[in-house]
């Protein structure tokens, strides 16, 4: 405590602990209509008896509070953020500007489609681009995030089987899957059947063959998977699944590795979700908003969520007319997943990104993401880091790679968590830790395409420095971090005695 930084000395005080009775930031517009007693309009028994105890602060107090709070966050614009499976690529500021244009930002979702033609044209254009990237013909932009897209996909699968008079019970997911996959399966009323991983980090085909049967509704798969490895048996995997009449679902969280290079539709998948907040630069906002559009094959299309964007007029054929509209008349649709048309603000940003990069730029983004990941792994190897943190599967990776901290723990006595916390003192956001679950002391590293070689070199050096320091004195890493606004927090205590709101 003797060496507290200024930020550490500045203890957390909430907005509810600031201010004074009578202070305010809001000035109400004048009441320009005849004054009416509230008693006359709404019976007292329906009205609030005691006011919500909201903060009472002036505008300057309010601004200073939240600006100071913002400075207690690390962010992508400040430093390297190689968080595996999250694709923390640069967020172009152009996107904020165009999303903020009043014609987009202040458009009411129930505006007559005839007077929202720009928005519908944009959504149509984004659907066409995502369709092209997926290699699948039909798209719904409605899901709000990846997990919402997954739920849509499994419900589409259910509707598809119901149409064929089938009630299947299970969904296959590899043991490397994101947690959202099994959670989605349960919410959609199916049972999870886990499929094992082979020695090369791909799906264990024998296990898949043994478990795929007429009860299998769907296989959910990420490819490249969460180990950052492209499964070379993908065509055979999809064939096995299709042979038992199940659908194949592609979790698009790792699409950033293969844009324009390999398409889920070409691999045989029926349903794909995209994370616009990963591959398509929607800023992550500290935990959202996101957007999780889905692309599907012809056989799944009748069940897509409604409304669906259509083109009317022209020669009368959907898809060629000049006027865009929202079509609710979809008798086989699974229905809505949410209100209105989806997270349009995210569509604007993703669409702008696709316009900026174009076909060649998107492919270049994926090639560079893969180049950066392999280069970072090579640098770690050159610096001797991989002797203590070897790759979980030693082969060319895609856009990310998984290291195992097992040898580091054994030899240096520090855990992956300690390494991560010490990297905070070096000014880096650590990679994803303890995921995927089947890698001991896992560290999942995804540098993305928008980082420079210099940044990758410096990060590799920082990891090497932490390991060298730990060899001399492991206590330093075990007690890290030292320079952050707070140091290691008591998470167990927080869960045991939850304090989830300010006592007022």
């Amino acid at each position, binding site marked *: 405590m003797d060496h507290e930084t200024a930020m550490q000395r500045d203890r*957390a005080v909430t907005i*509810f602990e600031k201010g004074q009775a009578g202070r305010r930031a809001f000035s*109400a*517009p004048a*009441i320009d*209509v*005849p004054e009416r007693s509230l008693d006359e309009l709404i019976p007292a028994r329906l009205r609030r008896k005691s006011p*919500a105890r909201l*903060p*009472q602060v002036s505008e300057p107090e309010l601004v200073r509070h*939240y600006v100071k709070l913002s400075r207690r966050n*690390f*962010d992508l614009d400040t430093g390297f953020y190689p968080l595996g499976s999250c694709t923390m690529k640069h967020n172009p500021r152009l996107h904020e*500007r*165009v999303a903020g*244009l*009043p*014609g*987009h930002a*202040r458009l*009411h*979702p129930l505006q*007559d489609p005839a007077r929202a033609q720009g928005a519908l044209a944009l959504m149509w254009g984004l659907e066409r*681009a995502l369709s092209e990237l997926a290699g699948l013909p039909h798209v719904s932009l409605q899901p709000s995030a*990846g997990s*919402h897209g*997954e739920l849509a996909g499994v419900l589409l699968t259910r509707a598809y089987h119901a149409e064929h008079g089938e009630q299947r019970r299970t969904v296959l997911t590899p043991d490397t899957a994101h*947690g959202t996959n099994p959670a989605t*399966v349960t919410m959609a009323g199916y049972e*999870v059947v886990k499929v094992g991983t082979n020695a090369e980090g791909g799906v264990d085909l024998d296990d898949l063959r043994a478990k795929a049967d007429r009860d299998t509704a769907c296989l959910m798969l990420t490819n490249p998977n969460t180990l950052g490895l492209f499964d070379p048996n993908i065509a055979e995997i999809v064939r096995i699944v299709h042979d038992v009449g199940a659908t194949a679902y592609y979790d698009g969280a790792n699409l950033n590795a293969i844009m324009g*290079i390999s398409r889920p539709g*070409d691999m045989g998948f029926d349903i794909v979700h995209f994370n616009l907040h990963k591959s398509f630069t929607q800023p992550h*906002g*500290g*935990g959202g908003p996101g957007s999780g559009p889905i692309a599907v094959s012809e056989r799944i299309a009748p069940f897509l969520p409604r409304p669906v964007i259509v083109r009317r007029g022209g020669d009368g054929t959907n898809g060629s007319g000049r006027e865009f509209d929202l079509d609710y008349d979809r008798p086989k649709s699974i*229905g*809505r997943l*949410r*209100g209105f*048309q989806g997270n*349009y603000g995210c569509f604007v940003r993703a*669409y*702008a990104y696709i*316009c900026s990069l*174009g*076909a060649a730029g998107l492919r270049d983004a994926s090639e*560079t993401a893969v180049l950066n990941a392999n280069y970072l792994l090579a640098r770690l190897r050159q610096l001797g880091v991989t002797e203590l943190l070897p790759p979980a599967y030693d082969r060319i990776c895609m856009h990310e790679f998984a290291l195992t901290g097992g040898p580091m723990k054994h030899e240096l006595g520090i855990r992956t968590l300690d390494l991560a916390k010490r990297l*905070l003192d070096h000014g880096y956001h650590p990679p994803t830790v303890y995921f995927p679950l089947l890698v001991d002391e896992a560290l999942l590293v995804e540098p993305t*395409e928008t980082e420079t*070689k210099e940044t990758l070199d410096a990060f590799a050096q920082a990891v090497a420095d932490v390991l060298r320091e730990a060899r001399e004195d492991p206590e330093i890493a075990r007690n890290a971090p030292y320079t952050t606004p*707070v*140091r290691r*927090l*008591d*998470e167990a205590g*927080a*869960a045991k005695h*939850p*304090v989830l709101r*300010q006592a007022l």
Partner: protein
Amino acid sequence: MTRYTAVTDADRQAMLEAIGVASVDELFAGIPQEVRAAAPLDLPDGLGEAEVYAHLRELAARNTSVEDEISFLGAGMYDHYVPALIDMLMSRSEFLTPYTPYQPEISQGGLQVMFEYQTAICELTGLEVSNASVYEGPSALAAAAYLAKLTNGRSRFVISRAVHPHARETLVTLCAGYGMSVSEVPVIDGVTDLAAWTSAIDEDVSAVFVSQPNFLGAVEDLGPLIEAARSHGALVVCSADPLTLGILEAPGVLGVDVCVGEGQTLGNRLDFGGPSFGFFAAREEHVRRMPGRIAGETADVDGRRGFVLTLQTREQHIRREKATSNICTSQALNALAGVVYLSWLGREGLVELGELLAARTAYAREKLAALDGVSLLHDQPVVREFAISLGVPDLAAVRRVIARCAVDHVNPGHPLAIDYPEYRDGLLVAVTEQRSRADIDQLAEVLGRALATERAAAETPSGGAEA
């Protein structure tokens, strides 16, 4: 190389050498030929920043926003004023660009915002616990349904037909998977039919859903509705408009189990429907079945106050198929706007704004009800939205009237018959603090004229077709 990447030819050469391959293509050698894209992407070439801006500007210009007309559209999203400081805070890199706070030591800003947000939502709803946000309003209601299913395992949901049609449809979509049936209770005089509600609820009912105010703008008398459900042990879920809770009784005080709702009205722009946020608050006994992120207070090793994501054993990344929800990314940035907005309004402002909305809405309601042919669809108390009948034969006629108003740059509201065929000439009119008395007078004049034209056209032998 694009403007967002930085690998020069020299960099690439050095990087490939370090990796030990001859070309970038070699890095992709593990992808079998049969699943390679056969041709380059069929997409246009990339554009410069100024060109992209011009294109997006052109698309924006083809939309009629609430800046281009006097709009009384509501029906779930409302044109409230968003203070400038929210734009500034939401565009700060430190809030805009981080991921979910998995490393709490460098995420105290975002985590404290979540804690403050949860506090504000608890205050507003009168409930004990809140999560850090879900996607948006209708899916928040469906998330509450899943909590009820996990809680009591019963087989049926009962929902008022006065709940937002998007929420009703979302509930049906999302509970189909886990095999629930949904029954709908009709509306009488603009509110949920209490007799039908009471007889629809029995011991098989897992949860009931009601909205405050309801989709028709009416304030529901929640007390008897809640009582009817609780006597059968069903969970009570109320979807509330948070901005009306300055003057309407907090649903938690009245005894609901869960209060959810659309957070757009709290400092978020319209954005053609999203992103906004959904809020989710509940009684304490439900906390371990809540969906999504929850921030909690704790201390660091030196005793400093700090915040972490907590109760994570509910969540998908820990519990996987046994999780209480699959939600991962939610709406942190939009929830930030929500708590900043509530702090900006403040304790008194929330009440004052509610009073202003009620007064302006009452004025508009009386003005429109006085027009020839127009009548109130119900005379229940309202806060910022009301429903009228236009006295025209059908939805097509309502649409023609709206189109005529558009010529005069007025958008009079949302046609109810789109979702409620029984209100064939119904119109839902919303009045925010951004619509002045002069705007309301303009609405009355323009709508009155449009209706007169419609009636005159209907009386002509040609059947109403205009020249």
